């Protein structure tokens, strides 16, 4: 692989600054021979929370993490439009400069109240939330413990923190217990345990209640990322921690606006009032533009829906159960019990890419997820269910998966033909 820059080094070695990505390029080339590159595809139109369009073909969206389907909720749309009319399209400043509006502060107060915490800070994205909060919390003498299946933003949070980081076995409080006991914490330091509520790839739920017990037994702080579970689980939508009755014991609770809150942004709440001090410490909070007023106001409207419309949670759980049961009945290898994230394990990356293309061609969009972004080096067809999906939508998705199974030999032959034809 060579670039076109023509530096002296490139001329002498035949290597460019892009050469290190040669193995990646080979993988991408195989995927492109099979069909559309799943990581670069674009919709020609999105018409609603469950429908998109490519060319003349209508697509059922089953991989958007739009769990409550609120991106088209009339109140959220109206709030965003009204915010643009009143405050313009962007803040042009960070939270510590001119970028904090009354709406940012109101949303922080309301999220804090929903979670029963004295402090909540709103960030520009969910990714930035974990990056900022983890790096702000953990100092040189502290040790971070992360779940083996932690999301990239948590791993990057440990990198930005630059402190000792230990990984424990996925969803295994006993393994964390062992590693907390084994690890020496430097003088003056503390342990910070970071887990997620619902894991985004396999869709499995964490035993947060057991993690609370283990973390606090060792005097560690517990940080829970409920990006995929806030709004979806719990009697009032406050997540898996609420459902398991331990919300008040969570030291730090993070989430995103880009799923159930129907917008773009993120938040971290804490039961420690001193968390407010981190506003003057967290570089990804201090040195990036604040969330646009339209995003903040849409999230505010979605928050009100989360609190006042429990039927959204009833709907999504019913559709998730329907889809999971249907796929299980067909004999698909599913990675976890029913939840709004349903991952179908496939034998390898090429087959998964081919099947992803086939499903899209048949009118269903799911996510293709491949290593190293997946646990156990799995290749997955990942589905996220929405409260906006109807029973008929799920039946349609199931019928496509049934056809996928029935035509598997033909689909594989086609894949081999495409790879061979472009060799």
């Amino acid at each position, binding site marked *: 692989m060579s670039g076109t820059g023509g530096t002296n080094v490139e001329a002498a070695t035949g290597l460019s600054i892009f050469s290190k990505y040669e193995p990646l390029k080979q993988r991408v080339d195989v995927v492109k021979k099979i069909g559309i590159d799943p990581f670069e595809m674009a919709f020609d139109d999105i018409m609603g929370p469950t429908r998109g369009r490519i060319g003349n073909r209508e697509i059922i969206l089953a991989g958007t993490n739009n769990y409550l389907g609120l991106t088209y909720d009339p109140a959220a749309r109206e709030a965003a439009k009204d915010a643009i009319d009143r405050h313009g399209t962007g803040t042009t400043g960070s939270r510590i400069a001119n970028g904090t509006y009354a709406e940012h502060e109101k949303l922080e107060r309301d999220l804090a109240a929903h979670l029963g915490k004295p402090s909540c800070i709103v960030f520009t994205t969910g990714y930035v939330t974990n990056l900022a909060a983890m790096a702000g919390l953990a100092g040189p003498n502290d040790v971070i413990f992360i779940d*083996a299946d932690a999301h990239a933003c948590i791993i990057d949070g440990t990198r930005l923190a630059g402190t000792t980081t*230990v*990984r424990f*076995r996925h969803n295994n409080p006993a393994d964390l217990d062992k590693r907390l006991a*084994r690890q020496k914490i430097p003088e003056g330091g503390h342990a910070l345990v970071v887990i997620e509520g619902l894991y985004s790839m396999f869709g499995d739920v964490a035993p947060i209640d057991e993690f609370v017990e283990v973390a606090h037994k060792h005097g560690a702080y517990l940080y829970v990322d409920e990006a995929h579970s806030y709004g979806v689980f719990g009697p009032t939508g406050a997540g898996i921690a609420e459902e398991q009755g331990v919300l008040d014991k969570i030291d730090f609770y993070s989430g995103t606006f880009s799923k159930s809150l129907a917008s773009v942004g993120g938040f971290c709440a804490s039961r420690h009032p001193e968390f407010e001090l981190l506003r003057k410490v967290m570089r990804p909070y201090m040195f990036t533009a604040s969330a646009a007023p339209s995003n903040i106001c849409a999230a505010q409207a979605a928050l009100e829906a989360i609190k006042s419309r429990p039927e959204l949670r009833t709907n999504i759980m019913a559709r998730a159960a329907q889809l999971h049961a249907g796929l299980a009945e067909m004999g698909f290898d599913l990675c976890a019990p029913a939840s709004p994230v349903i991952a179908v394990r496939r034998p390898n990356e090429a087959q998964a890419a081919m099947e992803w293309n086939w499903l899209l061609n048949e009118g269903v969009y799911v996510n293709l997820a491949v290593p*190293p972004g997946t646990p156990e080096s799995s290749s997955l067809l990942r589905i996220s269910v929405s409260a906006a999906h109807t029973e008929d939508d799920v039946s349609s998705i199931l019928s496509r998966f049934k056809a996928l199974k029935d035509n598997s030999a033909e689909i594989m032959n086609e894949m081999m033909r495409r790879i061979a034809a472009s060799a």
Partner: protein
Amino acid sequence: MPTDQQIFDKICELLKPYNVKNKPILRTSGIMSDLEVDSTAVFDLIMELEDHYDISIPMEVISDVKTVGELVNAIQELLES
């Protein structure tokens, strides 16, 4: 305290299931580059080594390790510390 050779042998044993192409494992073998073990599997291997030797191998230590020999050295240093 295990010898350098014992640590190397243990790593070879634990690497087997991840070494899908059955390539020869040398001290100079790049774990990811030569043996084609992906990053997720490397961390799983590390957890097995942590449990076997009852030590903690932080992620930042692993990020500096490229070859099997470097992993042997890293474990030896942690056992001695």
